[in-house]
């Protein structure tokens, strides 16, 4: 939004005007969407080799996804790791977001920065650190290592989205509830939580996507026999050249778009820009 000064009858009025930035970035759109479009088209290829443009139309590679055993196993692993990590990240993230929004205390900005740091550190670096300590020093089994690693990468998303939801929350109704006889904990469950429900749901979905689509952390932690879904996709393209991978990509795009659509409905996408 660009604010424009309008003079009317000697009074200065500021009116919001639609931004003109659209034409500036629109040439970038083909670069963003083009590859996705090509992938989508190749997924309907009837032949055995991934190529563009496709020669005949077929849905057989979509069918093939469900026939490849390792995809099914990796899919289950990914779902399990993402859901379990999500739950732990919620248990840690909700109280943290609440404390950071509700109270003023010394070192608040440091703690805030600490919780957000996994977003700022390149995943490949974070993954290496995890490899050294979680897998190396502490010798955790693969599942446990994935669980810990994914919890860490989900936590900042949970905290950010819930904090942004809490920024619209009027904390004086907490005091109202207390003066009416509710305990501190009771107030949290009967007044605070119901009011940030949609924020929590959005946080869970965004964190889930972040974890489910993650490659750079998982690649360090997966080991013999245990792989997450995106890592399995990498392994697959190293060995096979058929369009199955395009078909999977299209499905993942749809799932992601669907989740983001729900998140957008729940609370808008403002938390990406808000501090």
């Amino acid at each position, binding site marked *: 939004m660009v604010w424009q000064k309008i003079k009317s009858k000697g009074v200065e009025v500021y009116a919001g005007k639609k931004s003109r930035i659209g034409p500036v970035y629109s040439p970038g759109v083909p670069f963003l969407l083009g590859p996705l479009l090509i992938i989508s088209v190749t997924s309907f290829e009837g032949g055995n080799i991934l190529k563009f443009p496709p020669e005949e139309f077929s849905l057989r590679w979509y069918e093939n996804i469900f026939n490849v055993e390792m995809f099914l196993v990796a899919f289950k692993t990914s779902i399990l790791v993402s859901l379990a990590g999500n739950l732990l990240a919620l248990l840690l993230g909700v109280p943290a977001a609440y404390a950071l929004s509700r109270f003023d205390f010394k070192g608040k900005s440091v703690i805030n920065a600490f919780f957000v740091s996994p977003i700022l550190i390149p995943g490949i670096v974070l993954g290496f650190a995890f490899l050294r300590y979680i897998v190396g020093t502490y010798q955790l089994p693969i599942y446990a290592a994935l669980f810990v690693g994914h919890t860490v990468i989900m936590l900042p998303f949970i905290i950010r989205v819930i904090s942004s939801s809490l920024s619209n929350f*009027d904390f*004086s*109704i907490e*005091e*109202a*509830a*207390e*003066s*009416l*006889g*509710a*305990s*501190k904990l*009771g107030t949290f469950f009967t*007044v605070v939580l*119901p*009011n940030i*429900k949609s924020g929590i749901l959005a946080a869970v979905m965004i964190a889930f996507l972040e974890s489910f689509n993650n490659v750079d952390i998982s690649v360090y932690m997966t080991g013999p026999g245990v792989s997450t879904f995106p890592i399995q996709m990498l392994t697959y393209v190293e060995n096979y050249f058929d369009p199955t991978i395009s078909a999977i990509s299209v499905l993942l795009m749809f799932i992601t778009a669907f989740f983001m659509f729900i998140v957008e409905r729940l609370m808008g996408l403002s938390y990406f820009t808000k501090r």
Partner: protein
Amino acid sequence: MVALFTLQDISVAYNKQNILKDFNLEIEKGKLVSLLGPSGCGKTTTLRLIAGFLQANDGKFLFKEKDYTKVPVNKRNFGFVFQNYALFPHLSIFDNIAFGLRLRKNSKTEIEKK
């Protein structure tokens, strides 16, 4: 006559700056009292202290001659009118009104009657 509310040598400080210092106040039963003063002199602070949202750094608060200084907000059974209405946005009008009554263990029929 003994006072209903007594504030004894109350001190409250925000960031080491005293807002109330050795403040004394006695209010008798049945009296209507108003606190007057310029903005920022500590009226809201005093009320928040009586309601229990705020703990005094020093001094005592007595209610019916009992020491209420450490009694938590939800055990005081005082009414408090908020400067901004402080309604619960996730509840209906009925549930907003019933919130306190439920917590104070009124039966459902009693709540509806009220």
